[in-house]
C-alpha cells in the first residue's frame, strides 16, 4: 500500500469513526427522549379525550333536558303522542327533525313506552319502527353517553347518544339524542395530525384519518416536508374503552378509542439527521482527501526528490548534489546519500584509471596484432625468396618481381596503419572500394600457406563505400580465423561476393568466407564476436571482435553459421557503393 494511501485511510478512520459514533448516539438519544415525550402526550390525550367525551355527553344531556321540558309543555305534541290525534300526526313526525335542527344535534328520536319510534329527526320517515332495545340499554347507563349505530335513509352512522324520558298521560316517552361520531369528530378529538384516533366497535372501525390519506400525507398537507418513501406505520398506541349499544345483540358491549401517536415526524427527523450526517461525512471525506493529499505531498516530496536524485546517480555522473539544510530524518538521509555518492565518486576514479591502463594493454595487443598481420606477407615473401636463393637463384629476380606488389601492399598497409595509430583517433576513410580487388590481394598474400586451398567466387560490381584498410583488415582476420580452424589439416577456404537487396533500403554487397575447419558449438557461436574470447592457445580474442566493430563502422552486419565438424561460414553484408 502506498504511503499516501496509508495516510489517507488513517486520516479517514480517525475523522469519520468519531463522527459516526456521535451521530448514532444522537439518533438513539433523540429517539428515546421523543418517544418518551410522545408516550406522555398520548397518556395526556387519553385523559383529554375522556374529558371531551364527558363534556359532549353533558352537552347532550343539557339538550335532552331542554327537549324534555319543551315536549312536556307542548300541547300539540301531547295531543299527537298521547291522544294519537291523526290530524297532529305530521306535527309529531316533523317534531324531531325541527328540534334536531334547533338544538344542533345530529340524532334525535322520540319513542313511546313500547319502543316504537314516533318521531325521528335524522330519518323522518322511520316512524312506527319498533326499537325498544335502544332506549332500554341507554337508560341503563345513567349519566353516561354510549356509542350506537343509528340509521339515516342513505347510510348508517355512529352516534354518541344519551337518553332521557318524559311522562305524559301516564305513558313514558323516551327522548334519545346524540351527535354523529365520524372522522371529523375523531379528528377534533385528536387535535393534531400526528395523533390518529381509531374507534373500534363491534362490526367496524372508524379512524380520524379516514379519507384514505395516511399520517404522512396529513403532515405534508400541514406543511411538514417529509420524504416520499417514509414509513408511516410506526406508532405508539393506547386505548380508552367506552360503552357501545349493540342493537343486534341487544346488549351493552364495549368500543375502544385507540390513540395512535405516529412516529412519522420522528422518523422524518431521523431521516433528516441521516441525510445531513451523510452530507457531513461526505464533505469531511472530501476535506480529508484534499488535506491528506496536501499533507502527503508535503511529507513525501523530499523523499521523492531524494529518490529522483538517487535514480540519476551513475558512474559517469556522480555530481548529484545531496546537500540540504534540513535537520530532520530527511536531512540525515540526504546527507548520508551525499556521503555515499562521494565515496562512489572516489571509487569511480580508481576504476577509470584501471580501465585506462587496461585499454592501453589492449591497444598494445591490437597494434601487435595489426603489425603482425602486415609483417606476415613480408615474411612469407622473404621465406620464399630465401628458398629460391638456396634452390634456384636464377628465379630470384623473376619471383622478386612477381612478389614485389605483395611487399609494396604490405608496406603500404603498415604505413597506413602507422598513420592511423599516429592519429590516435582512427577515423577511417570513406570511398568506393572494390571488395573483389581487396579479396584478390589478400588471397594472393596468403596463397601457398600450408595445405590450404583458396577458392574465390567473385561477382563483379561488388563495390562498397568505406576504408579499404578496414576492409582488408576484415578479410585478413576472417582468413586468419579460417586457416586457424583447419588446425594445419588440408582444407579449403571459399570466398564469395555478390550483390543482394533483401530487406534493405538499398542494395547490399554480401561477402561470404567459408572454411572446412573444425566448426563451432552454439555456445562458441554466441561468444565468437566477444572481446578477448578465443579458443586458440595463443589467441588474443580480439580478431573477430575487431571484425565486428569494423563491419559496424561500415554500417554493415556480420553473422556466422557453424556446426562442430562442419566448418564455419561468416556472412558480411555491406551497403553497396555502386551507382544504381
Amino acid at each position, binding site marked *: 500500500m502506498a504511503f499516501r494511501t496509508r495516510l489517507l485511510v488513517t486520516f479517514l478512520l480517525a475523522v469519520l469513526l468519531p463522527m459516526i459514533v456521535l451521530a448514532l448516539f444522537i439518533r438513539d438519544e433523540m429517539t428515546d427522549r421523543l418517544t418518551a415525550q410522545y408516550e406522555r402526550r398520548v397518556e395526556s390525550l387519553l385523559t383529554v379525550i375522556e374529558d371531551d367525551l364527558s363534556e359532549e355527553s353533558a352537552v347532550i344531556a343539557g339538550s335532552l333536558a331542554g327537549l324534555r321540558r319543551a315536549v312536556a309543555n307542548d300541547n300539540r305534541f301531547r295531543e299527537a303522542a298521547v291522544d294519537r290525534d291523526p290530524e297532529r300526526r305530521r306535527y309529531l313526525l316533523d317534531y324531531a327533525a325541527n328540534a334536531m335542527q334547533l338544538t344542533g344535534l345530529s340524532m334525535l328520536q322520540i319513542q313511546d313506552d313500547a319502543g316504537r319510534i314516533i318521531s325521528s329527526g335524522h330519518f*323522518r320517515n322511520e316512524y312506527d319502527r319498533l326499537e325498544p332495545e335502544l332506549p332500554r340499554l341507554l337508560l341503563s347507563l345513567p349519566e353516561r353517553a354510549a356509542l350506537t349505530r343509528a340509521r339515516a335513509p342513505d347510510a348508517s352512522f355512529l352516534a354518541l347518544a344519551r337518553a332521557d324520558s318524559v311522562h305524559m298521560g301516564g305513558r313514558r316517552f323516551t327522548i334519545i339524542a346524540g351527535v354523529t361520531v365520524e372522522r371529523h369528530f375523531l379528528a377534533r378529538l385528536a387535535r393534531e395530525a400526528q395523533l390518529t384516533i381509531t374507534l373500534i366497535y363491534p362490526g367496524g372501525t372508524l379512524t380520524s384519518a379516514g379519507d384514505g390519506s395516511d399520517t404522512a400525507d396529513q403532515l405534508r398537507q400541514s406543511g411538514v416536508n417529509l420524504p416520499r418513501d417514509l414509513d408511516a406505520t410506526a406508532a405508539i398506541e393506547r386505548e380508552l374503552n367506552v360503552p357501545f349499544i349493540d342493537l343486534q345483540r341487544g346488549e351493552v358491549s364495549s368500543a375502544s378509542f385507540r390513540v395512535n401517536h405516529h412516529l412519522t415526524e420522528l422518523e422524518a427527523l431521523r431521516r433528516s439527521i441521516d441525510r445531513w450526517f451523510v452530507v457531513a461525512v461526505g464533505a469531511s471525506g472530501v476535506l480529508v482527501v484534499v488535506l491528506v493529499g496536501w499533507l502527503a505531498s508535503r511529507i513525501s516530496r523530499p523523499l521523492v526528490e531524494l529518490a529522483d536524485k538517487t535514480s540519476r546517480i551513475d558512474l559517469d555522473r556522480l555530481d548529484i548534489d545531496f546537500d540540504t539544510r534540513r535537520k530532520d530524518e530527511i536531512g540525515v538521509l540526504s546527507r548520508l546519500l551525499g556521503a555515499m555518492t562521494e565515496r562512489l565518486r572516489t571509487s569511480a576514479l580508481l576504476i577509470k584509471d584501471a580501465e585506462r591502463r587496461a585499454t592501453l594493454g589492449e591497444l598494445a595487443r591490437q597494434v601487435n596484432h595489426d603489425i603482425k598481420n602486415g609483417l606476415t606477407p613480408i615474411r612469407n615473401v622473404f621465406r620464399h625468396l630465401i628458398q629460391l636463393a638456396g634452390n634456384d637463384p636464377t628465379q630470384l629476380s623473376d619471383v622478386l618481381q612477381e612478389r614485389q606488389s605483395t611487399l609494396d601492399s604490405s608496406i603500404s598497409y603498415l604505413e597506413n596503419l602507422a598513420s592511423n595509430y599516429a592519429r590516435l583517433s582512427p577515423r577511417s576513410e570513406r570511398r568506393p572500394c572494390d571488395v573483389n580487388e581487396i579479396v584478390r590481394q589478400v588471397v594472393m598474400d596468403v596463397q601457398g600457406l600450408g595445405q590450404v586451398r583458396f577458392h574465390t567466387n567473385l561477382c563483379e560490381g561488388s563495390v562498397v563505400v568505406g576504408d579499404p584498410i578496414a576492409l582488408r583488415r576484415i578479410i585478413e582476420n576472417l582468413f586468419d580465423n579460417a586457416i586457424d580452424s583447419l588446425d594445419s589439416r588440408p582444407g579449403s577456404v571459399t570466398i564469395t561476393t555478390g550483390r543482394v537487396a533483401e530487406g534493405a533500403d538499398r542494395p547490399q554487397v554480401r561477402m561470404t568466407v567459408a572454411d572446412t575447419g573444425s566448426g563451432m558449438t552454439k555456445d562458441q557461436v554466441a561468444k565468437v564476436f566477444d572481446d578477448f574470447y578465443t579458443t586458440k592457445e595463443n589467441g588474443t580474442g580480439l580478431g573477430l571482435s575487431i571484425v565486428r566493430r569494423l563491419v559496424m563502422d561500415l554500417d554493415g552486419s556480420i553473422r556466422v553459421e557453424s556446426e562442430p565438424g562442419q566448418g564455419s561460414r561468416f556472412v558480411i553484408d555491406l551497403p553497396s557503393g555502386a551507382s544504381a
Partner: protein
Amino acid sequence: MRLSVLLAAIGAVALVAMAACGKRSLMKPASLFTPRCEILPAPAHSADSITVAMPDVVELGRVPWAGNASERLLFRHLYETLITVDCLDQVCAGLAVSWKRGEGGRRWTFELREGALFWDGTSVTAGDVVTSWQDAMTLHTVIDSVGVAGGRRVHVYLKQPHDEVPRALSASVFAVTKAADDSGWLVGSGPYRIVSPNSYRMGKRTITVRSALGGRRVIIRFMETSLVDARDLLERGIDVMVTSDPSVIEYSSGRPQFVTVELPWDRTYVLLSTSRMRALAGGGTVGTISSHVLDGVAQNAVRGDARGHVPPSWWEEVSRCLDLSAPAGRSAVPMADHASSDRIVYDVKDPIARDLAERVVALGATDPVSAEAAAITLAIPGLARDSAAVIAEGVTTAELARSLRDGNAFAYIVVVPTRPPDPCYEAHELIKRAPWLASHGVDFAHTLVPLVDARSHVIAKRGRFGLMSDGYGSAIVVDGLFAGR
C-alpha cells in the same frame, strides 16, 4: 224524503253534465271553458300583461311536445289539439268542434272549427293536420294513420277499434302546427303567439306571448324561475304559479291577494323494482299494496299534497297495446346482485320521491311491525333485510335515467302521469326508459308498484284575469278572446 230529493238533484246534475260534455256519439261537445274547471273567474277587464312563473326550462327543440309542467303550461296557450280533456276528465272540443265514429270505432272523422286560423292568418286545414302529425305517427300511439276527408274534415284511423273518441288526440304530440316563423317557433293556432322568445326580466329568461288575433292585446310573460324561492316570486309581481311545495302553498294561503287552488291529480309515483321483476320472471308471486296502506304513506310520509294511488291504473289497461316490448337486446331482467343494487334511487330534485324512498327504506329495515311494512315487503321481494342493507340515494335526473336503463339498482322511485292521454304510448315510453320492464312472460301490469298520486297547486293573483285548469294538471289563462272560442 230529503235524501231522495238530494239523489234526484245529483242525478239531474249528472245528466246535464253528460249532455254538455264527454261521451255521446255526439257531434257537438261542449267547450272546455265551463265554470266547472274555473279557478278564477275572468274579471270584466283583464289585465294587459300577466306574468307566469315556470319552474322548469322550456326547450325550443321539443316544441310542441311538452316534456315538463312548464312546457305543458306554455304550449297549452300556443297550440291546439283536435280535442282536449277538462279538469273532470271529460273530453271536450279543441280544434275540432265535432267528431263521428265510423267503421266500428276504427275510424274517427273530425270536423275542424270553422274560421280556425294560424297566427299568420292562414286557415287551418285538414292537410295541415296530416302534415303536422308526421312525426307523431312514428310513435307508439293508438293512432294508425290520418287522412284528409275534405277541407276541414280529417279521418283518423286507429290501430284497434275504440268506442270512445281516443283521448290520445289530446296529447301535445298531436298539436296542429305549421312551419316555424322568424322566431324559430312552430306556428300554432292557439289564442297566443310568440312575441319574444328570449327576453330577460328580473334576470330570468322570459318568453313573451300575446293575443294572436285582434281584440285586446293581452301579453303573458312566461318566466323561467328555477332556483328562486317561490315565496319571493309572489312578492315580486308573479301573477300565476304552479307549485307542489307545501311551504309555498301554505304561504300563499295566508295572502289574501292570491287564490290557491288544487289542480287535478296528474302524476303518480311508482316503484320499479328489479327484485320484483326477477320474482315475476321466475314465476313467483308478489304482493300488492292496499289503498289503505298507500293512503297512510301519502298522509304521513309525504310532505306535500299526495294521496294513496287511486285505481284504475293506466298500466293495467295496456294489454291491448301492440308491440309492447323492449328495444332489441335490452329486455333482460337485471340479474346482477352487486353492491349498487342495494340502492333505492330517486331524483334528488323531487322531495316527494325522496320521502317515498326513505319510507320504503325504513319499512324494509327491520322485521315488519305494521301492516304497512308487511305489505311493502311483500310487494318488493328482498326489501326486508338486516339493518345495513338497502339505502336511499338521490341522484341527478341524468343519472337516474342511466341507472334506470341499466337496472343496476334495487329499486327506483319514478313518476308517471296519472291519467295519460295514451296509455300505450306511455307504456312504450316507460319501457324505453327501463327496458327490463318488458321481460318476456311478465305481465306489464304487474311490474309497477303504485305508491301515491300527487298534484300541484296553482297560485294566482285575484282580480286580474281568469284562470282554468285542464285535465292534465295545467292551468290556462283565460281572457275574453280565449274563452270566446
